[in-house]
């Protein structure tokens, strides 16, 4: 793999990674959001794969494959199963912040991410670190998604985007994470998603929906 192709793939992956996060903010259809998450997982997996192939590092390639299977396939599948069949659960009908404002906030967060990661890039300017702002922006956007969404599944998507962002930052800054660390983190997320799946099931049984605002009723 030549330097140019490596650069291209890395940039492309970072761009797609960020784009997927933006589209998650944009869309309201929960299924579409989960599908976007799968695409984001694919973009995330491309980073260690590209680095692994470029540096001839089998462990990194293995990490990439694990990430691919877990984040682009397994987790979205699990989440998709958690999406209810009721019409009102398949859409974020009334997000707490309207879409236009959400998009503008996303713009602000991204610009902020670019600004605050400048010193990080300045430490070691390389194609990989140049993509860090995108990963960091995804972290901020993920937090925003978690803050502004009502449906439990969208919350879970936000959580997973957060984790994707952290993983991407780690890959880009350290040029690769040991396999064991990545496995640990990914398993963590897997468990979290399983628990969330259980919880949404319970919520649906109890409240007849997964609108998180209804949790307020739990307060005595």
């Amino acid at each position, binding site marked *: 793999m030549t330097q140019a192709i490596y650069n*291209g793939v890395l*940039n492309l992956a970072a*761009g797609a990674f*960020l*784009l997927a996060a933006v589209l998650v903010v944009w869309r309201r259809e929960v299924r579409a959001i989960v599908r976007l998450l799968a695409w984001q997982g694919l973009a995330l997996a491309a980073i260690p794969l590209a680095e692994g192939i470029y540096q001839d590092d089998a462990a990194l390639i293995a990490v990439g494959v694990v990430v691919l299977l877990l984040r682009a396939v397994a987790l979205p599948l699990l989440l998709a199963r958690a999406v209810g069949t009721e019409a009102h659960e398949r859409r974020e009908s009334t997000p707490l912040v309207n*879409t236009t404002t959400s*998009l503008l906030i996303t*713009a602000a967060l*991204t610009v902020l991410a670019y600004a605050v990661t400048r010193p990080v890039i300045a430490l070691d300017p390389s194609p990989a670190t140049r*993509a860090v702002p995108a990963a960091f922006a995804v972290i901020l956007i993920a937090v925003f998604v978690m803050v502004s969404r009502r449906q439990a599944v969208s919350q879970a998507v936000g959580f997973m985007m957060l984790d994707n962002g952290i993983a991407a930052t780690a890959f880009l800054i350290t040029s690769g994470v040991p396999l064991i660390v990545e496995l640990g983190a990914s398993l963590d997320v897997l468990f979290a998603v399983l628990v969330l799946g259980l919880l949404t099931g319970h919520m649906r049984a109890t409240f007849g929906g997964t609108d998180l605002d209804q949790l307020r009723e739990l307060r005595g």
Partner: protein
Amino acid sequence: MSAMSVMSVVATLLQVVAVLVGAPLVVGGMRQVRARLEGRAGGGVGQPWRDLRKQLRKQQITPLGTTVVFALAPAVVAGTTLLIAAILPLISLGSPLDPAADLFGVVGLLFLGTVALTLAGLDTGTAFGGMGSSREITIAALVEPTILLAVFALSVPGQSANLAAIVAAAADNPGQLVSPGSLLAFVALAIVIIAETGRLPVDNPSTHLELTMIHEAMVLEYAGPRLALVEWASAMRLTVLLGLMANLFLPWGIAGADPSPLGILIGFVVISLKILVLAGALAAGEVFIAKLRYFRVPELLAGSFLLALLAVTASYFFATPTN
């Protein structure tokens, strides 16, 4: 200008003629793609040309109370579009008009056409004319930030907003084209071009219901040759914008600033193919989507604005040292 050779003038003239002749065919092709995907036979690629020839033979009607604005607006829309066709680097890079108007100028000319038509819609003094104008100008106002930011993003690699410089920079450095900035700008520009040319999901070009119209509502009063000019112009707008998009992001095959006859031929064939592929993809995509509610269009445009802003930011920050 010194770079203005005979061949570049020839290439520019060919561009204008090709857009004039080809634009209705592009629209016909798009309708045909849609018809086939819907299981219909379709009117054929030449249908818009038949319609045009027929409209040109029909009586011209001037509604009572309208002014010269109504009479001239079709010619202004068509004129601005023809001028844009002469400026853009479609077949070759060295249009003699390239130094006269950069991408900002082209966007301005585009809006000049839009404004002429909205004024014509208001000039009729009908309820639907005003409604169409109001909607069209609202969308245009919201499209402008995205367009200019996308122009900004595109001008970063070439250090210029002049079209030949942008396209030449892209052709010299194809690595830039897969950069996040370029991709985001592509998506943003695609959305605003869809909005500006009145395609789905912003406007439905084949609607019969006045209350859902945007572009069509403004031109309800036009008949005969003026109607022909309006429809011709809107086909040409679509064609030149698709051509612009094609060459900004896929610049291969375009002839140089001082082209040879063979270069012009290749450039012509290549740009025609690119436009046809893009138009076909657009038409195929439209089969799967419905028109957005008018007040959700601003969401779409806010999204495209965000993408354009990210494009600029990304092209600044990613700006990989191009050794």
